[in-house]
């Protein structure tokens, strides 16, 4: 099938860091797990239900959802609750975190998972399990039951299972499609039972291995769902809803519900094996990592542990990034914990970051060519710098998706998207 792509701008991702595929390993259990209760700026903090000194089992509830935009949090390891305190996260906002130190025996790792036959469950049962097990959408951190039930209220949408990984590093989703296709399709069926999409589209990379694609195709055909598999061109930011919609000639990106295989796997495990969201697939890589790998890590494990399991650093990394190279965040230090939204940990060498001193804008127009929304970033910057945020909004600042393509391309290394983000935050505050 013909690969589709968005129409203008973006950054080609022709080169991908070499990676040895194979079974995904479980990371070692952390001695101390720092469980962050809030995963993103807008999340509402759940209420802790344990106290310092208390012994907890693996998977035991640590904090209960406080309602909307808040999810249950479970203990990733068996142990003792040592501290409950507010810390500054790598995302730049404050969140309460519960520190559990490893002690006692495992209930999940050793035992075979129980297998429920989910087909006999109805929508309410499933919704209850998903809420109870604290499953969040890995790409956004929103509670899954919440966004699924919102969707089920407004039928006629397209569920996009997005295995698009538009950066030179991460390929977790594609690996999951290769290794756990059955669970992904099953998870998809569970999600579909809850949210009732009009149709389902698997969004895959144009250069996906046929060995991955063929079995997936068969599974999709065998399932009772209306699943189409659509390849997309590998160009950042093809993975954003706006660009997927543009590539599909869909006018309103709001009619797309995007969910990724790793979330579906977590959903599947919650419903079928009764497992809370205490694990996360993390791609550990970048030019300064000795042996890049995908690890199945426990929530709360320090990223330094994962890096060590991948052979540690080779050379001096310039930045450690949590998340993707385009839109991730710099890790404050190596003790930063894995959360349910940590999809990658990258140690980037100076050859990769290609950072350089910021210089004045030379009007080269590279940012204009890179912007997928058809904006003129250099002009927006000029307007913002001369204190005219309203004119910047009139020139399209509101349409900026913060993708960062312009900053990537800027030959004067002006952090354009930072100015845009800040301007919009100020706008909200006004």
């Amino acid at each position, binding site marked *: 099938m013909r690969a589709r792509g968005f129409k203008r701008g973006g*950054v080609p991702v022709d080169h991908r860091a070499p990676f040895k595929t194979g079974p995904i390993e479980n990371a070692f259990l952390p001695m101390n797990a720092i469980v962050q209760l809030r995963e993103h700026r807008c999340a509402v903090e759940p209420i802790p239900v344990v106290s310092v000194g208390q012994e907890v089992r693996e998977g035991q509830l640590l904090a209960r959802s406080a309602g909307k935009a808040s999810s249950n949090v479970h203990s990733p390891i068996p142990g003792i609750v040592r501290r409950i305190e507010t810390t500054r996260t790598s995302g730049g906002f404050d969140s309460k975190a519960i520190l559990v130190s490893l002690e006692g025996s495992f209930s999940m790792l050793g035992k075979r998972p129980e297998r429920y036959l989910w087909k006999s469950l109805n929508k309410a049962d499933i919704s209850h399990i998903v809420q109870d097990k604290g499953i969040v959408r890995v790409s956004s951190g929103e509670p899954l039951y919440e966004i699924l039930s919102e969707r089920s209220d407004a039928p006629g949408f397209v569920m996009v299972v997005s295995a698009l990984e538009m950066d*030179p590093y991460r390929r977790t989703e594609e690996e999951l499609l290769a290794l756990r296709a059955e669970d992904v399709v099953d998870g998809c069926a569970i999600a579909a039972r809850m949210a009732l999409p009009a149709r389902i589209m698997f969004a895959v990379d144009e250069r996906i291995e046929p060995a991955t694609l063929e079995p997936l195709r068969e599974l999709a055909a065998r399932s009772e769902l209306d699943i189409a598999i659509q390849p997309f061109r590998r160009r950042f930011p093809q993975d954003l809803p706006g660009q997927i919609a543009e590539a599909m000639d869909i006018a309103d990106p709001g009619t797309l519900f995007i969910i990724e295989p790793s979330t579906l796997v977590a959903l599947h495990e919650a419903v079928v094996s009764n497992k809370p969201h205490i694990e996360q697939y993390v791609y550990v890589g970048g030019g300064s990592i000795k042996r890049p790998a995908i690890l199945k890590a426990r929530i709360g494990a320090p990223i330094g542990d994962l890096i060590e399991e991948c052979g540690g650093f080779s050379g001096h990394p310039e*930045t450690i*990034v949590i998340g993707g*190279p*385009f*839109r*991730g*965040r*710099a890790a404050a230090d190596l003790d930063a914990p894995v959360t349910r939204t940590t999809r990658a940990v*990258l140690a*980037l060498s100076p050859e*990769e*970051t*290609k*950072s*350089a001193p*910021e*210089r*004045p*804008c*030379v*009007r*080269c*127009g*590279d940012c*204009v060519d890179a912007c997928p929304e*058809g904006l*003129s970033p*250099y*002009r927006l910057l000029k307007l913002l710098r001369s204190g005219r945020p309203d004119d910047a909004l009139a*020139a*399209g600042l509101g349409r900026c998706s913060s993708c*960062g393509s312009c*900053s*990537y*391309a*800027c*030959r*004067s*290394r002006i*952090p354009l*998207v*930072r100015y845009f983000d800040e301007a919009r935050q100020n706008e909200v505050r006004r």
Partner: protein
Amino acid sequence: MNCTKLELRSYPPFIHDWKTSAKAAWICSATLVPVALWSSVLYGRIAVVTWLTAVAAALVAEAAASALTRRWTLGDGSAVLTGLLIAAAMPPGAPWYVPVASAAFAILIVKAAFGGLGANWMNPALAGVAFAYANWPAHMREYVLPRFVAGVDGVTAATPLTFAKGLAGGLDIKVMDALRGASYPLSAIDGAVTGFLNDSLFSRLSARLPDGYIDLIIGFKPGALGESALLAVALGSIVLVSLRLIKLEIPLAMLAVFGLLARLFGTGLPGEGFLAGDAMFAMSGGSLLLVAFYMAADPVSSPVGRGACLLYGASIGALSFVFRRWGAFTEGVAYAVLVMNVTVPFIEKAATGLRLKRGGVA
């Protein structure tokens, strides 16, 4: 101050394109090195001295500007590039103070006084060259013959363009033949290569390449330093374009419009009639190519946006033609670019307006 800098660094995206403004300037400069070498072969010591003086003066001026504004900017490569471009526009053997003054004017007045790189709305190198033409018109128009043509260094001669313009020609005589008729010096190489090409290639196409064009192309003619190495300039331009360092639309539109007009109306040379202008002569003479790729397409002083760039390039081409056809001097192209530099904001507005009218987005 330091703290905000650190924070800026740690903002996504964390990876970048290989291009930086400094790298772009250094690569541009590097592509001019073959030009400098070739002209040094042609003119010997006097050429070397002019190249070095211009670059040194540019560096000193930039250092002075850095010291004044307390912003160290020598590393961004733009000063060296400006120095090289000024040297390229100098006639070989120009007195040392001409390139020095041009470079100082370019960097201290045109660039630094407007707020440094990025804020200058005029191309500094071109402004420096125009400054030299205004102050030392005689020195700037005193050309010498390459030593291969004259046999010795330092024989003065008019450029083919000036020379040809001075010739009264009938319609029946081609510009090159007119030149030769007026015993304009041509090199032995030209005779040999032209003869060879005519025998082996053009005779089969039943065409004939007149003598003299080979000289024009390889630089065996009097001219500015950068003009003499047309092939090296063309090579450098290819590098700039293929690395996407410049806005290709500008030189393309400029050369296309200029060439078309020259073909249609002629550039005031002997042997030209309506629809029979000698576009090849017009385009190989003068530093058209150098100005088109290295100065008109300079990002800072040109518009942003495809439509605006096409409009801008086309206007420069048309204006250059007007200056060349009816103006007195060969440097009309430089003035054309400077004039259009001033109009950049209007051009951008016009292009945006057009796009809006067509229903596009701003």
